[in-house]
């Protein structure tokens, strides 16, 4: 195909924009391997010292584990509540359905700071500050819209004649759900679960208010950035970027296509 001059210009411009997008992700790699005792670029030499410091610091490791299981629990809870909700919103016919639809998506529209402050106020009263399950609940509220959107899209594209066929062939409602509907929705379920996990794993604002002394990884990172810029954060960042890459690969491999979820 012949490339027109304007097309070439577009490609060059986009190259620069992609560079802008990827630059912050790329810059942490050399810094994390720096042998200098403080932030220096380009690094004078290579060493694993910042990774070692991360691995040797029980605070970092604790925070990492906490974020992992809070993320996992959030994904499970968000799926357990969000999947039935998506079914009700897509297939149900009841009074206030549109209102509930709006409510389910509201956590992404309402600024996170407002949600955080509000839930903080309530949890302080309930003495839930610093409790890991308190964070799971708040993160589930934030993750619910992703689950509803992804599962809802999957359900809307679902060919219902397959369910009718299963019922006509003798399957009960539950067996149809277990044998036909859910297996066919698996890509959407995988994507929704992983997105819920990542949204919790990355979440800072709510954690800032509610983690208390039991810090999550993002909260620990936030505090460190506020205090001192030390390349340990670069090492943590590299691991975070690698984790997200793995999750994206998993979504691409087993989930509903990345491009579909853009719609």
């Amino acid at each position, binding site marked *: 195909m012949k490339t027109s001059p304007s097309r070439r210009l577009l490609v060059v411009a986009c190259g620069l924009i992609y560079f802008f997008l990827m630059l912050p992700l790329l810059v942490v790699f050399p810094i994390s391997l720096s042998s200098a005792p403080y932030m220096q670029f380009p690094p004078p030499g290579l060493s694993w010292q910042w990774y070692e410091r991360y691995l040797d610091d029980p605070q970092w490791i604790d925070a990492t584990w906490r974020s992992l299981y809070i993320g996992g629990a959030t994904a499970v809870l968000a799926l357990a509540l969000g999947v039935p909700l998506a079914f009700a919103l897509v297939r149900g016919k009841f009074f206030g359905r549109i209102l509930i639809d709006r409510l389910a998506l509201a956590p992404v529209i309402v600024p996170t700071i407002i949600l955080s402050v509000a839930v903080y106020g309530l949890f302080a009263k309930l003495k839930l500050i610093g409790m890991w399950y308190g964070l799971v609940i708040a993160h589930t509220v934030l993750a619910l819209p992703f689950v509803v959107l992804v599962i809802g899209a999957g359900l809307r594209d679902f060919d219902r004649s397959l369910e*009718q066929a299963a019922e*006509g062939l003798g399957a009960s409602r539950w067996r149809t759900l277990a044998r036909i509907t859910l297996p066919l929705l698996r890509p959407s379920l995988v994507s929704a679960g992983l997105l819920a996990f990542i949204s919790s794993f990355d979440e800072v604002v709510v954690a800032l208010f509610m983690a208390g002394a039991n810090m999550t990884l993002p909260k620990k990172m936030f505090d460190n950035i506020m205090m001192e810029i030390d390349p340990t954060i670069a090492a943590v960042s590299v691991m975070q970027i690698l984790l997200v890459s793995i999750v994206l690969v998993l979504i691409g491999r087993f989930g509903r296509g990345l491009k579909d979820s853009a719609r």
Partner: protein
Amino acid sequence: MAKRFGDVVALDHVSLQVAQGELLTILGPSGSGKTTLLKVVAGFETPDGGTVKVGGIEITALPPARRDIGMVFQNYALFPHLSVAANVAFPLEMRNVGRSEIDTRVAQALAMVELKGYEARLPRQLSGGQQQRVALARAIVFNPRLLLLDEPFGALDRKLRETMQLEVRRLQRRLGLTTVFITHDQEEALVLSDRIAVMNKGTIQQVATTTEIYERPANDFVADFVGESNIFHGTMSAPGTVTFDGGRTLQVRSEKPAGAKVGVLMRPERFAPSGANVFTGEVVESVYLGTSFKLRLACEGGLELLVRQPARGPMPAAGARVTVGIDPESIHVF
């Protein structure tokens, strides 16, 4: 065995019976209510009134899963995540049939539709005709009391469709399956059916054998929908004579009393070069169809006739005058 589909409001007082081992076709244009009727029978819609009975037992209130009705969907509705064998085994598993028996019956069913060796394939690895066969095997493997076919040939090309039609017919005869077949294609209906029920606007227009539907339609709609037709309206002026508004008369065979308003149907292929009733007209349009000429004639009295003639000799050109005749036996009065 008798089945009754009764009094559904979306379907205006529809009542149908299908005999054991019979293939009944429900024929109608889209929106005629035929799909609703099918859904009521299969249990996907509940009727607002009336009953559905299979073998004398009422099943109106039963969920689809407990009706024992095999169905082939328009798009086949094969489970895309299950292999061919697992698709066919599905209804047996739902009935808690033992594993070894499932294997035997699945093998039998697949042999019946000539798909031996395809067990492990996924539906998307099959051609349209093969998918159709899997759907058929899945619908009959559990010996349903009734088989429903919902426009199953729509997605196939013409040649494959004709092969599949004959195959389904053979299979249905061999197994003695009571079958209800839904289509909007009148040719398909004539090929496959023992009897045809013509539907329009939620009501059944006529239920009869294929020849009867074609030769002796009950009303304008059936006459027009099935095959090509010339339909006129007139009055019985004397026994055996119909007079049209323009004054032209027609000799017919009919028991209708004098004075009755009647419809008259003349099939285009029933015209001969001469006959008891003679029409002369100018050719408005002529089409060559290989085996026949299709002519549109403007006759005296404002009548316009569609006529088919065997394709022999030169085709009459537009503007030519042509005379055709038709005997009273070939005219249907309703």
